[in-house]
């Protein structure tokens, strides 16, 4: 039950993009086609979950015992960068088909502030490992859901006459605003 509440709360109510403002860059950048949005979403779910597990272990079994919590930001960003590289190499060697599908999105993820943000938030929220993993997966599913929805809208937008000054980023932001408004309707779910 607790896990269901975490899931709904983090995937829909406080959607990472639409309510917490994390991961906006890939959200705006890789959302012109539904296909690429699905790819990016899957890659994010994968990397984010891995990153949270590793950073959680490092934080509680390395940083806390040695009282060097102040190295949190530095160590987390390096772990994430290294992890992305590793995932890329392993996928390339062992699961080439998956690599072909996700490969190009992986380098983009290092600079995705959502991954680092969620790793840090899992620590600040004092979740245990299991809660942290559920939390991260829900957040990532929420991200995927939002980016696919948004890509769908943008595909339609291609066919619409948008006033010149509003083309590109401005109209994308305004649509995100309306989407975010719609997601506020989920607020009473938990």
């Amino acid at each position, binding site marked *: 039950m607790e896990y269901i509440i975490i899931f709904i709360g983090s995937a829909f109510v406080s959607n990472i993009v639409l309510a917490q403002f994390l991961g906006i860059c890939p959200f705006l950048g890789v959302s012109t086609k539904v296909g690429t949005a699905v790819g990016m979403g899957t890659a994010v779910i994968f990397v984010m979950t891995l990153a949270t597990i590793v950073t959680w272990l490092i934080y509680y079994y390395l940083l806390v015992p040695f009282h060097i919590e102040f190295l949190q930001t530095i160590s987390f960003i390096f772990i994430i960068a290294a992890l992305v590289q590793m995932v890329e190499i392993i996928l390339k060697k062992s699961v080439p088909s998956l690599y072909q599908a996700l490969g190009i999105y992986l380098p983009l993820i290092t600079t995705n502030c959502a991954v680092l943000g969620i790793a840090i938030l899992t620590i600040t929220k004092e979740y245990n490992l299991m809660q942290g993993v559920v939390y991260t997966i829900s957040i990532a599913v929420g991200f995927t859901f939002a980016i696919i929805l948004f890509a769908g809208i943008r595909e339609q937008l291609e066919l619409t006459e948008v006033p010149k000054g509003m083309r590109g980023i401005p109209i994308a*932001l305004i649509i995100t605003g309306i989407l975010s408004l719609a997601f506020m309707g989920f607020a009473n779910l938990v």
Partner: protein
Amino acid sequence: MNQWKNFTKGFLRENPVLVLILGTCPTLATSTSVSNGLGMGLALTFVLVMSNLVIASIKNLIPGKVRIPAFILVIATFVTIVDYVLKGYVPALHKELGVFIPLIVVNCIVLGRAEAYASKNSVLSSIIDGFGMGFGFTLALMTLGGIREILGAGTFFGMKVPIFPADMQGNPKTILIFILAPGAFLVYGYLVALTNRLKNKLN
């Protein structure tokens, strides 16, 4: 290059937030009020100037292949310093900005300036570039924060702006949506459109 031009390019022509669309996450999240926008802006300016300074001074000592990790290390150090200093001396602001302070590490503006500017230019130009870009960022955040705070909370820098009627509990009936998430996207969208127009007129 003319240093004055170097300084002012971040204000409008190459404004990191409104023209280059970099650093969108903290822009949207921390612009709930003018003072938060100012705080975030100054925190980022400090990191930007210091990391530009260090990177421009050691650019020749770093082997090309480990360039990016070395830059990130320098940036992360300054971010952690800002984090602890704010926590100690301005705890209220530290609480408001929350996770977005450590996230300055992955802010594209900082790494972008380090890679595109500081690693190729002199120390002085890099510092000036850091200040210019930082002020441009701060300016954009304060504009966004100002609009959202006035319309959404009925205040400006915490002072009451008496343009809204009061409700039954005596609180002003403001347009709440502006201080919430959707308002951030809407105001930002229109500001970008406006800047585009302004820029086109100037050219």
